[in-house]
């Protein structure tokens, strides 16, 4: 997977590239806007990481130029402009995700992974499954090992999101935005409790736990148990 990072702040660029390389992506970094736009347009990339503020120019101009040139490469916008309005502007300009600075490195790699796999496989399917857990999107029914599980509508959406992003780290922010369309972090442990209730419903009484908590990072739906040091079930 090849990624291009267009970022003129050296410290941030170094940090972003190091983090993405650690997740074993092939990363190129570009500090110049014009050069960045040229490379983004002329070479093949699996995703772009684009800073909103590139010196005098607005990163959104680069993004618009890229989209006008017909490039559909997924773009993650990084920005110190964190307000809702700026976020909406970023997404309208053709961004696929918007991450406000400062951010945790794990949040960056989780969102990049989600971007890369977003359009991958499961989009059209009406039946989703992981291990012995099955979701029917039409009848909104869930069963595990043949036993029906009763979920509230929002819990169903939450589980659907997890299954679509199976084996990927999903952060609280991603869940809030995608499942609830909330753009403000509650300060209480609301999300954690929602997840643990969902976990009780799908994992309780089964030998293989599917829904894992990665402390300080997020959550993971996977048949494989993540590194023991990070989990808390």
């Amino acid at each position, binding site marked *: 997977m090849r990624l291009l990072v267009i970022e003129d702040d050296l410290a941030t660029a170094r940090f972003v590239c190091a983090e993405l390389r650690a997740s074993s992506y092939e990363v190129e970094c570009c500090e110049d806007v014009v050069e960045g736009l040229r490379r983004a347009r002329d070479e093949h990339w699996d995703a772009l990481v684009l800073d909103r503020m590139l010196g005098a120019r607005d990163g959104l101009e680069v993004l618009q130029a890229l989209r006008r040139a017909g490039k559909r490469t997924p773009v993650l916008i990084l920005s110190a402009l964190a307000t809702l309005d700026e976020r909406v502007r970023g997404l309208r300009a053709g961004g696929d995700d918007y991450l*406000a600075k400062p951010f945790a490195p794990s949040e960056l790699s989780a969102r990049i992974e989600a971007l890369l796999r977003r359009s991958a496989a499961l989009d059209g399917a009406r039946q989703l499954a992981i291990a012995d857990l099955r979701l029917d999107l039409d009848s909104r029914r869930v069963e595990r090992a043949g036993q029906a599980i009763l979920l509230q509508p929002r819990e169903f*959406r939450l589980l659907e999101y997890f299954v679509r992003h199976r084996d990927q780290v999903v952060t609280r922010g991603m869940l809030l935005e995608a499942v609830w369309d909330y753009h*403000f972090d509650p300060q209480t442990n*609301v999300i954690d*409790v*929602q997840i643990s209730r969902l976990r009780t419903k799908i994992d309780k009484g089964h030998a293989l736990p599917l829904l894992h908590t990665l402390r300080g990072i997020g959550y993971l739906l996977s048949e494989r148990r993540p590194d023991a040091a990070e989990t808390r079930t």
Partner: protein
Amino acid sequence: MIRLTRSVTFRLAVVCGVLIGGAVVLIGAIFYFGTVGVQLRNVDRKIGGISDRLVVYADRHALTDLAHRIDDALIDGIDSDTEIYFLADARGARLAGNIFLDRAQVPQKNGIFLARVLRNGKPSSARMDVRRLTDEAVLVVGRDMGDVDQIERQVWRSILIGGVLALVMAVLGSLLLRRLIEQRVHAIRHTAAEIGRGNLHERIPLSGADDEFSRLGKDINRMLDRIEQLMDGVRHVSNAIAHNLRTPLGAIRNQLEHALHGEAATSRFAETGRAAIGQIDALIVVLQKLLQIAEAESGTRRQPFEAVALRAVIEDMVEFYDAAAEQAGIELLAVVENEPAVFGDRHLIDSMLINLLDNAFKYAGNGARIEVRARATSGGVLLEVRDNGPGIAAIDRKRVLERFFRARHDVSGTGLGLPIVAAIASLHGAILRLEDASPGLCVGVLFPPIEAETFPNGNPPVSSRRN
């Protein structure tokens, strides 16, 4: 002093002068035609009448008889100080009359004409009616206009004097007005300059009269009060921000320093680093909340306002919190009556509810009962979050809306939750009220009633959620 032509008062004075001049001319014209004009018409009618009668007489009598009749008229003592007669034969010789006219002086056409004549040896201006009789004789009947001329001169003089006086008064009045306005404007400009120099306490002195300038001054002073209040607010907030960021930053710095130079440096470093990250994350939350307040206060988000149905927003939010409520043994209820809708920004209303519910969960504690209520009333849409926890002491209820104020220090928090709610409420034109729910706290947000024109079909939408 600005250039004269640019001065508003000068231009006003010129306009006034022109208008007054016009009025004087108009009044003069009416006066002139009402006096002199009427006189002239009377004179013309009178001499015309005499001429007509004499012409009829001349038709039936000889020219000498006419001459006699004119002689009689001249001595009858009627109008003798003004009347003028002149009768000449075809050769121009005078047959009767009290003036003499040369042939050249008499116009060829019958009718009124003016000329200077010698009457009784005195020069005077005369208005005369000339008629040609048979045999080329000429009959002139006229009137000495000396008295009328005098009246006319008098009229002209009064018009002139009146006009000049009016103009002088217009100029004096304008100068007075100009001085008056300049004095008042000067006070305002002086205040503006003082404020420009940073002296924000300066106010426009008010004269006490309830005139336009006093009202303008009052308006400006009110605006200045508000600006000063805002400036104080900004200063207070900046100080509060500095304090609230500096303190934790200092703590983080000290911890890191200590870990670097401490005895068991390496073993404790990972722990210290994690703690520092946690504290920095808390600071990031503070910054995000401050930005939210700033965003709401700047009013820039008024643009995407739309009708928001509160039922969907509240039910989603309660569902979002219900797992947490279940875990904490909190009874969380949504009571929505008569489909209330407000004109606003759904995301900000979400944020408002998140902050209010976070507070209720945090302060009312385990086992509490929390109600989210919404209903449309005649005064607007009332959104309430009510808990039966310990509530907020009356003395603190105003202060909890101040940034960084914290009523309780036994629970961690930023002191920014309610200020965010307040900023969002004010952006929506809503009134925020904190009341004692005895026991507990009731936070009420009264949104203004949604205007009818917001919904072309007359009905608010049932739901504006997209999922």
